[in-house]
């Protein structure tokens, strides 16, 4: 029973602002905690991984870490579910499962399971929206054997009809169950509102689309993506020179890596309005007020990050203070304007409140949103945001694993390796004027869609009280599933 993940901030009322003033005024600089010395931080130079770019464009990263006797690695392959044939939506999910469970020509997936588990080792494959990956991990003593099996699986997979069927069954179960969980409904439907139901970022696998996927499709996907610009990363208890030799032997002879195809996508954002999903077995409404976010390349991102912190970045944020602390309307509140690495992410404000206070919670959230635009930010708010973000910045690179993951991410999305440093420097320079202009430029309360997933018979006053136009009902009936029962009812 956690006290909750927090992403939103409240509107600071006049009363609250007046009360907060003394905390920052010189008269109260002598609070007990302010007398505690904060010595300089111990010097820290995070260990960067060794980067090797092969002639064919493939990139290797080696990060030695001898604390524990394990070695782990990953091959990141460009191309993911956003690139799959919409008629076969779900293909990459199925590929991610069936690749590993099928196994290779030499060793089928079941035999691989037996061998690896006996060594407490793992090899896994997975599909994501922009990539797929093969990863492995083992105790140091098994490094070579597990690596060889991983490479065998990478270069010689043998997709198996039965394992594809198994994956399809699992996927079908997920589809049939997707309306059981309120959060899942809200997340899915808000993506559809922001990006469009048919968009690569909004569409959903359906029973009909996953049924169309064949073993030949999986093989074709593999053949198509494996020639891309792979990024291989290895970390743990190994010797870099020896590992480099091994990796070169496997990857240096591959043909020139194909560049990632350019993307031509348009992101119009949601059609403003109120959208409602009825769910009769809940006593709470999950509210998501959503719009289009931005891309990390955007030079305004440091200002937006600071604005997000004031808006919803912690207990002291405007949304949290207002909706949770002052009004007790919600346990879960959160939000912010997110930035994607290579495409616009979403803007969102999330509040989960009891059915009877749905309208109130939405209106209170809107007050906070409107306040971002018309209530100027203060120096105190900026200072708090900077403290929050900069004093915990260290936790982005406090382990060798995080440093490696960050470098791989930057490489994958084409950002400079010193991105984190330049980003931090830019964060430090953000001014109150930057915050005000970022809010005016990026917060558009009139352009958002309000999604409510809740129990219609309990929501009083009703959503029409919002006076935001007609309420659009969203039908979440799952195509291909009998209406009266899901799978497996016994009566």
């Amino acid at each position: 029973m956690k006290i909750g993940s927090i992403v939103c901030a409240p509107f600071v009322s006049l009363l609250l602002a007046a009360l907060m003033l003394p905390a920052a005024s010189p008269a109260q600089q002598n609070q007990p905690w302010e007398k505690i010395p904060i010595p300089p931080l111990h010097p820290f130079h995070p260990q960067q991984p060794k980067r090797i770019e092969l002639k064919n464009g493939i990139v290797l990263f080696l990060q030695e870490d001898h604390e524990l006797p394990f070695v782990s690695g990953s091959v990141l392959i460009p191309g993911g579910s956003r690139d799959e044939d919409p008629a076969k939506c779900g293909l990459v999910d199925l590929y991610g499962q069936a690749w590993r469970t099928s196994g290779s020509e030499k060793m089928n997936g079941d035999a691989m399971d037996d061998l690896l588990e006996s060594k407490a080792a793992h090899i896994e494959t997975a599909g994501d929206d922009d990539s797929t990956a093969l990863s492995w991990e083992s105790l140091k003593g098994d490094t070579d054997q597990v690596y060889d099996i991983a490479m065998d699986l990478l270069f010689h997979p043998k997709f198996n009809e039965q394992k594809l069927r198994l994956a399809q069954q699992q996927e079908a179960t997920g589809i049939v169950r997707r309306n059981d969980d309120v959060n899942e409904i809200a997340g899915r439907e808000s993506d559809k509102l922001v990006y469009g139901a048919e968009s690569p970022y909004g569409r959903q696998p359906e029973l009909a689309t996953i049924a169309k996927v064949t073993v030949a499709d999986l093989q074709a996907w593999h053949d198509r993506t494996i020639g891309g610009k792979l990024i291989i990363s290895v970390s743990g208890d190994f010797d870099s020179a020896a590992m480099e030799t091994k990796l070169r032997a496997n990857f240096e002879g591959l043909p020139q890596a194909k560049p990632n195809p350019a993307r031509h996508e348009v992101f119009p954002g949601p059609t403003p309005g109120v959208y409602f999903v009825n769910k009769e077995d809940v006593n709470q409404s999950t509210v998501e007020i959503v719009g289009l976010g931005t891309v990390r390349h955007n030079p305004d991102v440091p200002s937006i990050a600071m604005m997000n912190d004031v808006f919803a970045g912690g207990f002291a944020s405007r949304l949290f203070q207002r909706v949770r602390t002052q009004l007790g309307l919600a346990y879960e509140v959160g939000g912010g304007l997110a930035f994607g690495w290579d495409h616009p992410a979403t803007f969102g404000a999330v509040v989960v409140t009891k059915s009877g206070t749905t309208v109130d919670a939405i209106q209170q959230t809107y007050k906070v949103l409107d306040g971002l635009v018309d209530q100027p930010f203060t120096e105190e708010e900026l200072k708090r945001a900077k403290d929050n973000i900069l004093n915990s910045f260290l936790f982005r690179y406090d382990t060798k694993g995080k440093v490696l993951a960050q470098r791989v991410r930057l490489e994958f999305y084409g950002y400079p390796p010193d991105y984190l440093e330049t980003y931090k420097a830019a964060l430090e320079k953000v001014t109150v004027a930057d915050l005000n202009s970022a809010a005016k430029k990026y917060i558009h309360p009139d352009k958002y869609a309000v999604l409510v997933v809740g129990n219609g018979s309990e929501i009083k006053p009703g959503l029409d009280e919002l006076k935001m136009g007609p309420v659009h009902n969203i039908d979440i009936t799952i195509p291909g599933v009998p209406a009266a029962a899901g799978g497996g009812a016994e009566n």
Partner: protein
Amino acid sequence: MPRNLPGRLPIAMVAFLALFLTCGIGFSQDLKSFEQRITTKVLPNGLTILICERPEAPVFAYTTFVDAGDVNDPSGESGLAHMFEHLAFKGTSQIGTTDYAAEKVALDNIEAANDALEAEKRNPAGSDPKKIEQLQSAFNDAQKAAQKYVIPNQFTDVAERNGAHGLNASTGLDQTMYFWSMPENRLELWAWLESSRLSDAVPREFYKERSVVLEERRMRTDSNPEGRMFEQLLATAYVAHNYGRSGVGWPSEVSQITASEAMAFHRKYYIGSNIVVAVVGDVRATEAMPILEKYFSEVPGGPKPLEMTTVEPKQFAEKTVVIRDPSQPLYVEVYHRPNYQSPDDVVYDAISDIMSNGRVSRLYRDMVRDQQIAAAAGGESAAPGIKYPSLFLFYAYPLPGHTSNEMATAIHKEIDRLKTTDVTDAELAMYKTRTRADLLRGLADNQGLANALATYQTRFGDWRELFRQLDRVDKVTKADIRRVANATFVASNRTSAQIETQMPATPAKNDGGEK
């Protein structure tokens, strides 16, 4: 991102089990290396401080482990431990207030107003709506009067502005844990913050926070099919012990908990002998221990509270819960088992591992791969806690078109195999190897290590047990597994629960609420 995979375990269960799963094993050489890096000290007030030096980066993580959870909630006050946990973020007499002396008076007024309101609400002769209205209004006014002195969220604000990362807490049935990570140069500031909230809690904004906690209940339990099922399952499996009671609290009880009750809980359980504080990271024990000692000595002392009298009686009747609701089918069955101190504790772990860990496990291979009747199936060795006799749990998510009865039959077939035939050498060896490796994997994470060390220090009185457990794991035999399976997995010791999908009889009204 793999989408839509059925969750492996009800979230509520994961929360309860996570602690247990971090238990594991170790090598002697690891124990030796940790011996050199770990310093413990029991303060005169009984509080134990544990410092583990791990200077990988200039940060540290801490866990405050309080040996009290919702199992300790007094009758009629379910959810109290959790309510107090929320209160622990509201500050102290020094932080979060503009004038504590005046605020204290205002807080006392709130209690008096609340008592008057509750008394009228529960008037045996029936409550007078007019009086209720007056009393409610007086109660609201008293809250407003106290609010004048509040600097909202100042405690967390100071922590977050000083780089607190992963700031949170959790309340289980067995324990309450508080934790975050920070840059190492904030160690003393953290010690001030943490020790002050342990020793100097103030029931600030209590009644608003109670509304927040009720929302938490709606989210985790009422509006979540697995949460609803798990609550009913436990309430059915237990007839006497508090493990059968809703951890987050029954709505009628949480909604009437008072600040006075929360403070009484604090006085009884938040005493030195009931608390272990573990710090892991870039910290030198020689420098840090005197600082921690200074601050944490402020926590009141006192004898450890007496253990509860209730012992769950032996179950003699098989019980079944059937929930008919619109969500998809799920089958769970549980069997009573002894607590973590039982010599068989590791045998239960072995059974859980062999039955359900990964694609080689028996339940996966039989139900998912071969019979193709389930999307996922597995077992967990202890729920909903470990401190008191708990439950061994099996679960299965049926594939579309398959029933809970088929799940039960398949699970029982595998249980019978455990009872009648020895597990293989390979299976037993795999359990031991994986347990050892999993322990090792957990050692390179400050927060995970702080949690594990605090847990073992509390439960065994010695963090070394985290490593020494490996010896017991190594001694598990095939005969142990058969013996324990035969003793535990019998019908009269079983409670099962299933969700049967049943859509509403009438078409759903779908207009977003009343016009």
